[in-house]
């Protein structure tokens, strides 16, 4: 089960990496709007993959994953991941080695997010209540806020030509 969740996070990673870089050559209109657009795009992308995986899991394993608390964790995790991915894709898009560089730069800062999401998911599936995963959910929420605010503040300056 644990390996399955890890795998599911990896699927999200590759999805993110391929999804964002290609769209970044767009001309900036209003910069923070561009960021939020890309972020929502990335987020929807991640959530679609997550929805697919969750339904497949529920279908093939005798555990229902269609639970509100679990979906909450998935949304929180994906939101931070999408923000970080969008920001890093922007930071690397001038680089000559961006395809190699993006996963390299993305994974270390994503580690607290992945860790918290995996732990929260695991605890929930083992039948723990909301109180038991409060720490992990707090970390997820904190990462989301930090990455979103950072990306939002930096975006305007980064896209300047």
């Amino acid at each position, binding site marked *: 089960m644990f390996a399955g969740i890890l795998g599911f996070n990896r699927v999200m990673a590759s999805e993110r990496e391929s999804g964002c870089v290609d769209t970044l050559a767009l001309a900036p209109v209003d910069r923070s709007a561009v960021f939020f657009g890309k972020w929502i795009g990335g987020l929807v992308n991640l959530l679609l993959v997550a929805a697919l995986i969750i339904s497949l899991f529920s279908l093939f394993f005798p555990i229902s994953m269609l639970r509100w608390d679990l979906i909450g964790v998935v949304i929180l995790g994906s939101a931070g991941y999408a923000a970080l991915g969008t920001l890093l894709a922007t*930071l690397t898009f*001038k680089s*000559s080695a*961006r395809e190699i560089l993006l996963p390299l730069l993305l994974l*270390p800062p994503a*580690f607290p997010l992945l860790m918290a999401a995996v732990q929260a998911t695991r605890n929930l599936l083992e039948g723990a209540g909301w109180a038991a995963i409060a720490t992990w959910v707090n970390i997820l929420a904190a990462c989301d806020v930090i990455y979103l605010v950072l990306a939002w503040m*930096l975006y305007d300056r*980064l896209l*300047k030509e």
Partner: protein
Amino acid sequence: MIADPEDLHISAWTWPLTWAAAVAVVIAFLAALGYAPREQVMGEVQRIFYFHVSAGWVGGLGFMVAALCGGLFLRRPSDKLDDLSHASVEIGLVFTVINIITGSIWARPIWNTWWTWDPRLITASIMAVVYAGYLVLRFSIELPESRGRMSAGYAILGFVSVPMTFFSIRLFRTIHPVIVGASAAGAESIGMSGRMTGTLILSLAAFTLLFAALLIHRLRLSRLQRIVEHRTWRQLESH
């Protein structure tokens, strides 16, 4: 041809700072070996602690300077800020690695292992990888203007890993000792005697001086590098 100091961009601060740092580090070294008392439980190996903490401090300081310069750079780009940010990351990274290595040497007799997946060890190595990524990112962008901007943005983003490392031993269950401030319940803390605290402060000061000295040398190098780069561009243009 013998180049004069003006050409080599040696500032009035370069040599005094270098000597001050050298003397301070030697004094701190002697204090850690001689002045500080032997720790009751851990014995002589505990003496590495003074340099371990100092190296960790310089790592955090370097990354903080890098993030601040990154922020200022994004407000108003200048070569100086870019160089300062770059130099701070390089020095900070070296000292973070020193911090991890000295920690490992200490952990071998104390924890009976070179390495364990403790929250502090994980966050510290993530921090090192994040800033190694900075150097790779910088190296891979050729256009100086966007190189500066992207590096500055990344230096700010990467700084998230610094408080994460600092607070990891205060928030999670860990076997890493907490020295400064309150620790989470169950974490081990070292009661330091007056001489130990004195030695620690001395070695923190010495390492901070060392950071400043290395920074000034690294900045000079960046300056010379830019001059060479500029000349190369001009030569390419004239052809």
